[in-house]
């Protein structure tokens, strides 16, 4: 009658099913090596493999099939369960390592950098070996996936060879002996398995990282992944290390909460990171200087947009976010303090106002408060005004939002299903 015993039985069945798939491939991994498998499991969590390699609706974990949106079209994630035909069951350890750290497929063709091998290259071969050892313990799922659905000319994988030459720097993470072990651990996690730059680093017109602007915020999947450097105005510099740890662990802190793609990341990955690793990430991110540019001067209080924005804010926003912009800690974000609000690119702000949003639910913070959509209620000019007001009040400063920006995004959102 108890659920717990049912889980134990199911777990045993998975192990038995997995065994034949893992058998017969000669490599340096042993299915008996608990330490390696556990290390791999944790690395797979740090790398958030499950997020991309699982279809959102009723997908089996790691069985692939999730469309990954890139600026050039959609790439569908492959099956990385140990199924011999449709998964990685027949991949050798060397081939697997080539894919994860060099972006080279088993047949020698190039992967698209939707697979963040540019970051995963920072992991060691032992790390990747451990991930594979862990994946080999999973239930093999037969799920053929047609990975490449890009339009011409991006569907020609050969082009990726040139791309790699331009934008990919192979090589494992090298610790900086001048920094603490904690900082180095954070740097490894952020630039390596955590692949934070995949979303937070701006890309050039070919999709390569603008390395000089690393982690300073970038457009992704209809959002703006914010600046996560130590920049005090636009990044996480004004948050304490503890604030950052809480945000990654629970999805919420006293200043803000996360939703959208980052909400998925928290649910799948960082809420399961060790606290010491979260602290290391916070230490490293806060050490990054950002662009060093001073924030722009705030829009004047007597600007008509600001005056209209204040009236709208008091009418429709202040019930939750409060007149002073401070919200309710851990429940309603502080618009006065949340750095996302001040992002130079207002995409996320516009999206949240038009679409509404829901923050992530975690064991520590199960509430997952939502914000309603104001799409029907506010015109483009009104959304622009209220965002301009929010971005330039309570000590904040950010470029004014224009009705055109809102109109453009309203149109784009109409075609988005996420």
């Amino acid at each position, binding site marked *: *009658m*108890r*659920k*717990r015993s*049912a889980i134990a039985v199911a777990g045993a069945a998975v192990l038995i099913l997995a065994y034949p798939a893992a058998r017969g491939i000669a490599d340096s991994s042993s299915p008996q090596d608990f330490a390696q498998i556990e290390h791999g499991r944790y690395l797979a969590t740090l790398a958030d493999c499950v997020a991309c390699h699982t279809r959102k609706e009723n997908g089996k974990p790691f069985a692939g099939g999730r469309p990954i949106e890139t600026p050039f079209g959609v790439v569908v994630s492959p099956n990385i369960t140990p199924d011999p035909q449709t998964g990685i069951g027949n991949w050798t350890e060397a081939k697997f390592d080539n894919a994860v750290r060099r972006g080279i497929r088993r047949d020698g063709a190039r992967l698209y950098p939707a697979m963040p091998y540019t970051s995963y290259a920072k992991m060691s071969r032992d790390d990747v070996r451990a991930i594979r050892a862990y994946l080999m313990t999973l239930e093999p799922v037969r799920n053929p996936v047609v990975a490449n659905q890009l339009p011409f000319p991006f569907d020609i994988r050969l082009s990726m060879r040139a791309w790699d030459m331009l934008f990919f720097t192979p090589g494992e993470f090298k610790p900086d002996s001048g920094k603490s072990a904690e900082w180095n651990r954070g740097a490894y996690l952020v630039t390596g398995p955590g692949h934070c730059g995949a979303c937070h680093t701006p890309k050039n017109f070919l999709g390569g990282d603008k390395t000089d602007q690393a982690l300073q915020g970038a457009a992704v999947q209809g959002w703006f992944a914010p600046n996560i450097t130590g920049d005090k105005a636009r990044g996480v510099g004004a948050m304490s290390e503890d604030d950052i740890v809480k945000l990654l662990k629970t999805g919420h802190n006293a200043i803000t909460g996360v939703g959208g793609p980052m909400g998925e990341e928290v649910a799948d990955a960082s809420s399961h990171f060790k606290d010491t690793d979260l602290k290391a990430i916070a230490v490293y991110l806060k050490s990054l200087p950002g662009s060093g540019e001073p924030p722009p001067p705030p829009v004047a209080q007597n600007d008509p947009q600001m005056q209209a924005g204040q009236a709208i804010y008091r009418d*429709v926003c202040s*019930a*939750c976010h409060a007149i002073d912009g401070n919200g*309710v*800690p*851990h*429940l*309603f974000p502080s618009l006065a303090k949340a750095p996302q609000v001040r992002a130079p690119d207002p995409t996320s702000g516009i999206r949240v106002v038009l679409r*509404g949003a*829901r923050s992530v*639910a975690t*064991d*520590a*913070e*199960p*509430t*997952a*408060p*939502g*914000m*309603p*959509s*104001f799409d029907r*209620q506010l015109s483009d000019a009104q959304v622009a005004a209220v965002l301009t007001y929010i971005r330039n009040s309570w000590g904040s400063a950010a470029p004014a939002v224009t009705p055109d920006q809102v109109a453009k995004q309203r149109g784009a959102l109409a075609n988005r299903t996420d």
Partner: protein
Amino acid sequence: MATQLPRKDVVIIGLGWTGSILAHELTDEGLDVVAIERGPWRDAATDYPPNFDQDELRYRIRHELFLRPDQTTFTFRNKMSQTALPIRSWGAFMPPNGVGGGGVHWNAETWRFLPSDFVLRTHLTERYGASFLPEDMTIQDWGVTYDELEPHYDRFEYLCGTCGTAGNLGGKIQNGGNPFEGPRSRPYPNPAQKQGFGHMLWAKAAAELGYKPFPQPSGNMSQPYVNPLGVRMGPCTYCGYCEWFGCGNYSKASPQTTILPVLIRKSNFSFRDNSEVTRINVDASGKRATGVTFVDTSGNEWEQPADLVILAAYSMFNVQLLLLSKIGQPYDPVANTGVIGRNFTHQTMSSVNGFFDKTKFNFNPFVASGAIGMCIDEFNGDNFDHGPLGFVGGGYLGQVQTNGRPIETSPVPKGTPKWGAKWKQAVADYYLSNIKSGSIHGSMYSYRDVYLDLDPTYTDRFGRPLMRMTIDFHENELKAAAYMTDKYAEIVKAMGANIVEKSPRKGPYDVTTYQTTHLNGGAIMGADPKTSALNRYLQSWDVPNLFVMGASAFPQNAGYNPTGTVAALAYWSAKAIREQYLKSPGPLVNA
């Protein structure tokens, strides 16, 4: 032919307050639980956004949140000699529908009943003698005591973050609280809400008349709160759109804002919405429930087998399902036999309107919350000597004005024309300077000829007989209403009102004007299977693997809002299931 689903440990009928509480408690016990809900899934901010939730026409006038009578309804009559007719538009009460149930649309007035309420017949008989009670009054003791329920009241209040001022901590009377309440094991989790000018002026007048006013216990948050499950609530904004509305500010305690966020994360919990349970299935012996049958919106019929069935629908639907499933003996008021349908009650609400000088009194009635207000308890239960009065029962008196919503709030003194320039002028004069219908929250005790049974004529879309209500006020309740209304009017006069209009509840029972949604009884708890459907743990006397939650278990109603007691009983029952029933499934009380 129903399609059989995989067996579950527990099936819960209805995912409102009690369904959510039982689901949470039983999943904590490790059981695999499925809840089946007739209405839709509903959330907080995304379903009741603060940007359109305050829509009086949609929610209050057009009954957005409630069961549509087209789906199912009740038939009604006052007297056994009459023919009941179907209710085609809700009036006296508002049957909830959907996940969260009545917990979505309530005001969040979170009361405890008095210790004497639970032993009512014994208490009144001892004090006044058996002959003092009307002959056809069928009040009973509950079979459970206040002291037994106290920890469970406490759990619900901490779940909800109830705001209030304790009046009795461990037997010590506290200033500013209700001195008549039963002893509390600890203070309320949050301080009382701030009160408006009208509420405070009323309290001042009440205090000057020698009463002990106290803030109404409120599930609208006075400050941010994290409940013991880790779920967070935000401070109330006093928007005045609570009752009949959902709260998108996470400020009103509801299953959505206190318990469902945790429940839906549990792997051993699942639910089906838009699925109506049509019967509880029992085996050939009639002594064991085997699960339930339900119908989805496509008309497909499903059978959900389960070891334990929790009936947690709205009170009258609980009774209807028991009758349709032929569980327990139907009540027969003529022979005075049977139990299912017996001791059906509602509430006896009265009101007083006070009109004040607009140049001196500005009450800003729109600054309010559902459970705001100041109350006195001198005239509740048996807190006062009924001997010279010739009736029993009572209620709290409160200046609990919950809103100044424009469609409903057009107070004009009697004699004002019903429309036109004079009406408009009177509304303008009194909108801000009127004390609207303060609550006189009268009890309704049970009678032999007030009951529920299956209608002989009218059926629902499945061809099942509708539930028939036979209900009227008796002289005892009307006397109590008149007495309390007089007392209330004295307070309004003392506030300085120029015009005081009294509206004591009058018979006959009217199904078209709103009183409360507190319909009770019909499947009552008690100590004797001859006069109760459930034992003291809300377990069916007839089918021990069936527990029936909700106000249908109340042997009679008290002079309070019922939700606190409904929830306390749910926790009490859940504890008995967890600690006694699961160890040895079978009757928990041998009668």
